[in-house]
């Protein structure tokens, strides 16, 4: 016999989801139009109908550890067709945002990243880090920081030495990876437990080998944005998302190549504009800027979709990353030294903010959604 589920509504949770952009969740009257309309929902226990009532009853445990909220790509078909204007797409987005904060530790940092008032403090952290570490390094005779760089050509490393940059950035990056790893462990356990309770899978345990195979299987789907293109309402969003996605991917590859070139071969930048890696960097940068700009435009013009701080945070940060990077390069070539160094500092702030916010902000979807898709593939749900 199935055990009875004890329903214990958490009104605080309801209010938080409402605050995260799910303000219409209580309008749902369970007609299930959403679950029928959703082009990517599975046939077995489809979403988001059941997620909507769980949300309006404040059943946190039914949502946070539920892989289905991640299978949703926020196409918006459900929200468009919802006869009550309950916007299931936005509710799920808000629940995802809540889940990210739930799995990311430490909580304090999660709160800071998701609170617009604390954004200046957050952005001041890398500046402080550069100053403190740079000044401390001076004590050891290392000139990593020169706040009045000069010379014939603009070399950003003269201002903040590449090593200083890496000393700050690399630990931040790996800190984020660590946060992800810890969050994912709990996440995997939770979604498996939920799938067993709800009858979404018949697999008792997660077998690591099978799971990795499933993960490999979904990678092409992710890269090609296959799920995205199944969407009706927001199908055009696939383009901008792809541009941003591949922009980041390209820049990540370029950064890694130059890292190896610099530390492995001792060749310091700036590198020639004719270098093919540089081409890749520029193309990726342009893709990121255009993609992010399109996303912002999309959010501004779409007034039937809820845009909360969590949404603006990542699209604006993505655009800022691209713009500051590109402008740094352009002002360097153009010889506007003062401007170039200033923008470079901004660029570094953006990068650090990006790294630190990865597991705490909406950026985390890259990991959770991929894992959830792999889990669905693994669990054999149709």
């Amino acid at each position, binding site marked *: 016999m199935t055990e009875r589920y*004890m329903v214990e509504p958490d*009104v605080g949770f309801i209010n938080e989801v409402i605050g995260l952009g799910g303000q219409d969740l209580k309008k749902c009257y*369970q007609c299930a139009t959403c679950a029928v309309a959703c082009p990517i929902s599975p046939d077995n226990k489809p979403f988001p109908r*059941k997620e909507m009532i769980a949300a309006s009853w*404040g059943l946190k445990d039914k949502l946070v550890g539920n892989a289905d909220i991640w299978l949703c790509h926020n196409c918006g078909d459900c929200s468009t067709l919802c006869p009550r204007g309950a916007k299931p797409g936005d509710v799920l987005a808000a629940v995802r945002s809540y889940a990210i904060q739930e799995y990311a530790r430490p909580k304090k940092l999660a709160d800071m990243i998701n609170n617009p008032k604390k954004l200046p403090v957050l952005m001041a952290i890398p500046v402080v880090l550069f100053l403190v570490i740079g000044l401390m390094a001076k004590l050891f005779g290392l000139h990593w920081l020169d706040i009045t760089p000069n010379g014939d050509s603009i070399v950003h490393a003269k201002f903040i030495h590449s090593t200083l940059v890496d000393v700050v950035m690399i630990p931040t990056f790996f800190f984020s990876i660590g946060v992800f790893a810890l969050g994912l462990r709990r996440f995997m356990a939770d979604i498996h437990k939920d799938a067993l309770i709800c009858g979404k899978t018949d697999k008792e345990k997660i077998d690591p080998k099978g799971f990795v195979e499933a993960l490999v299987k979904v990678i092409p789907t992710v890269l090609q944005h296959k799920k995205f293109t199944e969407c009706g309402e927001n199908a055009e969003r696939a383009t901008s998302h792809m541009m941003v996605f591949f922009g980041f991917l390209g820049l990540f590859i370029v950064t890694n190549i130059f890292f190896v070139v610099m530390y492995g071969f001792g060749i310091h930048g700036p590198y020639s504009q004719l270098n093919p890696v540089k081409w890749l960097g520029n193309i990726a940068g342009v893709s990121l800027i255009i993609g992010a700009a399109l996303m912002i435009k999309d959010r501004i013009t779409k007034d039937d979709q809820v845009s909360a701080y969590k949404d603006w945070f990542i699209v604006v940060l993505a655009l800022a990353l691209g713009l500051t990077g590109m402008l740094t390069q352009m002002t360097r070539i153009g010889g506007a030294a003062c401007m170039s160094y200033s923008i470079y500092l901004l660029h570094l702030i953006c990068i650090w903010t990006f790294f630190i916010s990865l597991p705490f902000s909406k950026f985390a979807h890259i990991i959770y959604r991929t894992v959830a898709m792999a889990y669905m593939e693994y669990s054999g749900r149709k």
Partner: protein
Amino acid sequence: MDKKYGVYICTGCGIGEALDVKALCDVPEEEGLPVKTHSCYCGKEGLEEIKKDVADGANTLVIAACSRRVNFDIFKFEGCAVDRVNIREGVVWSHPRSEFPALTEEEKEDEDNFDRVQMMAEDYIRMGMARVEKIKLPEAYKLDNFSNRILVIGGGVTGLSAAIDAAKVGYDVTIVEKESYLGGYAAKVRKQTPVGMPYDSLIPSVVQSKIDEMEKYPGITVKTNTVVARIAGQPGDFTVTLKKPGDKIEFDVPYPLPPEMKVDEKGNELDAEKQHELYLEYNKGRVDILKTDPAGEKFGAVILAAGWRPYKPAAGEFAHLGFGESPDVITNHQFEEMAAKGPVLCPSDGRPAKSVVFIQSPGGDAGDSDFSYAGAVTSMVALKQAKYVREDYEDGKSYVFYQHMRTPGLNENFYKSVQQDPGIFLTKGEVTAVSKNGSGLIIEADNTLLGEKIQVKADMVVLGTGMVPATADDPVVNLAYRQGPAFRDIGLFEGYCDSNFICFPYETQRTGIYAAGAVRRSMTIEESMEDAAGAALKAIQCVECSNRGVAVHPRSGDMTFPDFFFQRCTQCKRCTDECPFGALDDDEKGTPKPNPTRCRRCGTCMGACPERIIGFADYNIDSIGSMVKSVKVPSEDDYSEPPFRILGLVCENDAFPALDIAALKGLSYSADVRLIPVRCLGSVNVIWIKDALSQGMDGVFLLGCKHGDDYQCHFVKGSELAEIRMKKIGDALASLALEEERVAQFEIAIDEYDKVPQIINEFVESVEALGPNPFKGF
């Protein structure tokens, strides 16, 4: 009245093309009646032709053209008896020449050939002529005494609203209320559901504003601490005796003998004399219904707004929901009483009830039905009371488990606003158990929107029990009618008084008594106020029609009423018993006493009377019987293979319109049937069937409304009575060596026009299979 006839045959709308009009004209001419034709009698020129004849003295007209259901306002001539012979829908359109070809010139030469459609049209004209010969112009029935005052029983929101509505248009109204205060249940609630835009939040009870408004009308008299002892007489002339609740007076209405007193110890029914003796003993101290109270007040019509009482679960009922087991499981009425006094508290220990579960369906054997006597109002009340918990406690939680959530009309806004409350949780589901859990309760539910099996902890459980109409416990109206003091219980409405729920909501089965509010069905205050307006309008219609001597409903404006030839009455009481509306009383001998303004003119009495002494001026045994007899029944003397003749007696309310629609849609049926519209199948007297069969017709069918649980009869039980009578006629047929299958009854709804041809054709085929009537040609 000297009858001066005129027969008019219209040749428009395809009639002239399909029929041999000259031969049609021969029919009245052979009888010596003047006949005219025109291509468009409903047009100006055609109409002038008839009007000119009327001006010249014609007063008995047969207009063979379209169905009487169309152009009824055109073919209306003051002081004339008119029969509309339906040769358009009934003959030409329903028997197109493409399917029923006319005879060719060659075929006409052989006298053994016949044209079925032409025969049909000629028969119908003959039938029309026979009818107008037998009917009289009706004269309105005038009451000797007439009152247009309106009595409202019940001083709740419904009664107050009805009184205000009637007083607004100038009628004198008396409200009687059995309690010492006005307002009814609405005076006792904490808040009520919305009655106006934007319909999104609870409001204070409207009852005080209703009382204030009522007091502005000098025409309204209020009598509290008063009940109705008896209502005697008839609409327009009711004599009402009022009394204090609990008083025993001689004008308390006598009650019929309860069934257990009608039998002896062995269970055999007592004879009539013995029963009457017991009846008199049973009602000792109460005067007979026919004795009028000289001190009684006069009223023209009654609005019954007696309201409801909360459902009281029996001992052990809802034990699976913890009712009776835990003091913290209560009904919505008990919850309302508590909420009206202050914050909601657990009855067990007085702690705040911060978590309350509202259950809308008892589950178990009841399936997914709501509690009995529930309705949309109980959904609304659950939402309202869920709000109380939230008003009382900031951290309060309300759960509503429902099988049906009904918030009709703009109350959808109220549902939406309740839904928006973060502390209110709604789900469909079946509550299977409520059990104690320490000082609290655990509620288990299956098949919810949240999953298969869930449970919730709560401080209190509220059952959404229903509103029992006052008429379920007590007749309230205490009618001094021979059929009894209450509305006839037809076993369909659980004590709610109603005659036809959908079509005629305010009509009870007693003309002149109009039900409104929760006595009619469970409803909200908003619905009750609207209902009150409807009933007030009906009451006004009733007094005005009674004053003019015409029927109120459903044959509004009908001037005829049943006329009795008492010399031949055998006091069999069938008419008194069978009248669906209790229109007839009888004296101690059993002679019926008609009350024409109670009558709805269905003719059920006429159908019931074995002596055939009841009839209407324009609708009687002779008029229909003559129509039947005027049908030409060809025999082997006429043709080597004579066509069959089958009579159809068709209810004019549903079946006849369905036939018209079928014709309009181009559906055809056998041309061997002859149809006669009747007021109700209840008015069909078996003599017509005997007449038909004895003159050689091969079969007779009755086409009328559905009966049973979803009855559609305008007169409640006409089609049901007809079926009982048809079963009895079977024996009579057998004694004549005629097959029972020659007589049949079929049910049809007005929208089932597509089935009509099939029903008719199948019956014709079944009669053809039996062979011709052996009496043919005698």
